[in-house]
């Protein structure tokens, strides 16, 4: 048995060496993977560069204000004219799976004004590029690797049968299952070799932190490959023609990698509509602008309820004062806060809903997992937005004492302004969930394959 296995594996190796199509496919996947790594890296590097450049814009803005307010300034003017940035630094793994990072802004320009509209602003992106999606390593693994597996496995039995070599081999004391197992094993080894090569190249080229995620990445990819080998096996044991297998497997690929995820997404949008975004921005405008017309006493009364420490500061007597302006900006924020929270939680639950149903499609689960590993999913963006919101609070905490205590804003005070960088993190909960789902899907496919094998005619002729 052991000897037969070795012999068959060796024969596969001899065949592989001489069969050009297999080599070509392997080469193609390596090239695609290489390009994926390069282009993912280029995209993330560009984001990094843009984020770095923000600092330049920030300093430029301060320099301009320093010229404009040569000595000291009213903190209100600074709050109004000065813009700072909340930055979303990519994780070191982001380049391998760009996820939603190209669609969501990776920095937010913030002024002291009402925050919600600022949080919802978006970045310059070419919609055509977004629609086509990133060509990153994750794309190669999620979409192309299954095609590669299908391409090298679909005729693994049928070709021998159609060519006629099967009879001679099976008149030797080797069972059909050993024979198939060897062929699958050889191909699995080949695929894993490519996976390891690409992963290693990806990690080295993009500078991903070689932490525990290496094992998660490899483990998940192994499971995903096993899943597709299971699918191939389930079709192979039907013992149909090569053409049937090719059509059938491509059909399964299409169903699992395109049609099912697409349907789940449509369903999630119909099932969990999010209309709060538009409502939020309209309401915020009304609330903030209403501040101009409300009696100042009333505004301050509501404001001081939240900031009792400023209650006994100098009263506003004239037509306009910055502290009054920012007080009603903040009250505008507070009046839409619950709507904003609903908006966020609806986004969250829509994504959760879709992720839950991605169980039916291993490619979707795998993509969710890779995005979670790279910290590039919607989760990561929402966490960043929350952190940007916190940052705005810190900005207010810095500027309010200047405003309410009528303290002049000196040049040195720019240095004291809080800064913000949010470091994207892998989403551990999503990772373990997806890993488990992937394992279950793989087990399911193998069980299905064995059931099919049980019910198909074992005869060869």
């Amino acid at each position, binding site marked *: 048995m052991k000897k037969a296995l070795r012999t068959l594996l060796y024969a596969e190796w001899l065949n592989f060496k001489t069969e050009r199509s297999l080599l070509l496919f392997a080469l193609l996947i390596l090239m695609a993977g290489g*390009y994926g790594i390069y*282009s993912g890296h*280029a995209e993330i590097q560009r984001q990094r560069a*843009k984020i770095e450049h923000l600092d330049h*814009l920030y300093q*430029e*803005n301060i320099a301009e204000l320093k010229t404009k307010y040569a000595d000291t300034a009213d903190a209100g003017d600074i709050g109004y004219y000065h813009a700072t*940035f909340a930055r979303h630094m990519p994780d070191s793994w982001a380049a391998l799976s760009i996820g*939603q990072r190209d*669609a969501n*802004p990776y*920095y937010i*320009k913030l002024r002291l004004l009402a925050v919600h509209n600022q949080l*919802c*602003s*978006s*970045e*310059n*992106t*070419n*919609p*055509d*590029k977004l*629609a*086509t*999606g990133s*060509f990153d390593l994750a*794309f190669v693994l999620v*979409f192309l690797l299954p095609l590669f597996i299908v*391409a090298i496995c679909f005729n693994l039995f049928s070709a021998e049968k*159609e060519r006629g070599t099967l009879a001679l081999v099976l008149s030797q004391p080797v069972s059909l299952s050993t024979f198939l197992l060897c062929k699958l094993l050889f191909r699995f080894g080949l695929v894993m070799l490519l996976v390891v090569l690409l992963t290693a190249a990806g990690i080295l080229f993009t500078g991903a932190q070689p932490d525990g995620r290496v094992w998660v990445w490899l483990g998940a990819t192994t499971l995903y490959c096993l899943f597709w080998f299971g699918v191939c096996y389930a079709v192979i044991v039907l013992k149909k023609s*090569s*053409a049937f297998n*090719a059509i059938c497997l*491509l059909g399964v690929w*299409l169903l699992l990698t*395109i049609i099912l*995820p*697409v*349907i789940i*997404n*449509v369903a*999630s*949008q119909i099932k969990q*509509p*999010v*209309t709060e*975004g*538009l409502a939020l*921005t*309209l309401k915020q*405008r009304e609330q903030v602008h209403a501040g*101009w017309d409300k009696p100042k006493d009333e505004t301050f009364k509501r404001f001081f309820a939240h900031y009792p420490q400023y209650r006994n500061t100098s009263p506003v007597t004239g037509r306009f004062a910055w502290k009054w302006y920012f007080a009603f900006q903040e009250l505008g924020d507070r009046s839409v806060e619950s709507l904003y929270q609903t908006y966020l939680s609806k986004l969250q639950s*829509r994504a959760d809903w*879709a*992720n839950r149903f991605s169980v039916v499609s291993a490619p*979707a689960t795998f993509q*969710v997992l890779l*995005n979670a590993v790279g910290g590039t999913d*919607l989760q990561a963006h929402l966490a960043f937005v929350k952190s940007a919101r916190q940052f705005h609070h810190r900005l207010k905490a810095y500027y309010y004492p200047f405003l309410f205590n009528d303290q002049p804003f000196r040049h040195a005070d720019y240095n004291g302004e809080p800064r913000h960088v949010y470091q994207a993190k892998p989403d551990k909960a999503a990772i373990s969930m997806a890993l488990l789902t992937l394992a279950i899907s793989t087990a399911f496919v193998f069980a299905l394959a064995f059931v099919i094998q049980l019910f198909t005619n074992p005869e060869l002729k």
Partner: protein
Amino acid sequence: MIKTLAQKELVSARRDKRFVLLGAIIVLLLAVAAVSGVVSYNQLSAERNLAQHAADHDFKSQPSRHPHRMAHYGSYAFRPKSSLSFFDFGLDTYTGTMVYLEAHQQNSANFSAVQQSGGLLRFGEMTVAFVLQWLIPLLIIFLTFNTFTQEKEQETLKVLLSQGLTVAQIANAKLQGYAKALSLIILPALLVASLFLLLANGLSIDAGFLLRLLLFLTAYLVYFFIFLAGSILISALNQHSRSALLLLLGIWITACVIMPKVTANLGSLLYQTPSKAEMDATVHHAASHGMNGHDPQDKRTAAFTKALLAKYKVDSVSQLPVNVDGLVMAEGEAYSSKVYAQEFDKLANTYHQQSNVSEWAGLLNPYLAIRYTSMALAGTDAAHYVHFLKAAEDYRYRLAQHLNHLQATKLKYHDKETRLDNSHWKNYPAFSYREPSVGWALGSHLVSVVALLLWGGLLYFFFTRLITRYFTL
């Protein structure tokens, strides 16, 4: 003779269980796509119409206000869904739906669907266009990959040839037969889709709509013809069904899955998009220091005021018959808008250059050609998006200038107290977006249209010649 043969292909296709099954699946998917397209079209249209009306209503019902307050109160432009968009979502999911329009500032278009979705969205969208662009070619391949090779393998082809038929005649018969078989699936599907289109268009039939519909149908028929003729051609030039199938599937995967991504990524690697923050900074810098860098804002304002004083022959701004505040602001708005328009054109041009890589690749890949043609006809491509953004900016500019003009003519110098009554806002026309014409839409995708026609034409004229020339038994 050809007719008899074509009839044979039609009958055997109809009796082919695979064909019936795949056809049924495709019709089902088309139905799902059409229904979900209409549902989402109605949902989004209603949402945006409602929001646009609410925003307009809010603006029009503002009480007496200082005009500059109104300029900051601003307005909103919501992008209306084009009536054909349900057919092909195009880039709609990836474009912002709403722009806040206020004085001095050009805001980004926000709330695109992609920002409000998880990663699953990126797998694609179930639209009629997806089924037509991806799945029908696949159906054609499955149906025809072995049409010649099987006859070679079973040697029936020799029998046919010994009857005195030429290979070209057989090929033409096959083309006709399969075209008929396919039309059994495609025509009802397209009819139903057209019906949905009519419904989505509110049952109103105007010339522009009919023209778009007609062009849609023509474009897709050309696209299907390309795949049908190409697939039969490859079957004729191959010796084995297996190799023909593998070659065709390889072509399909390259054309529909790999190449679009490669060209899109290449485009964005070659042409860098400036970030919004950079662009804002550039606009701000140019507006305050002058477009040439030696014409700062305060100098411009001083010169403008001086010219104004000279024009009205007075010594101080308070003596002017018009309010200099409004005029200065109008002047500033005009200048900064000009700067912005320049930067925006640069940005739009960058997008265009990026997408051009994919569009020119349409000459190699009919999928890319139909993709852009279809999006253009549906009004869901990048050009339409840019057109909308420009319309929104144009409206913003006019509104801001209208309000500046009110301030200049109806208010005194440095007057921050006077309020103008509601009639000034109530009668200002609301933002209404008019879609550009079909000609404009196709004009910005000439490359794709030409590529599609070129492919169709070349295959039409060279189909039999290629087969006659390169066919081997």
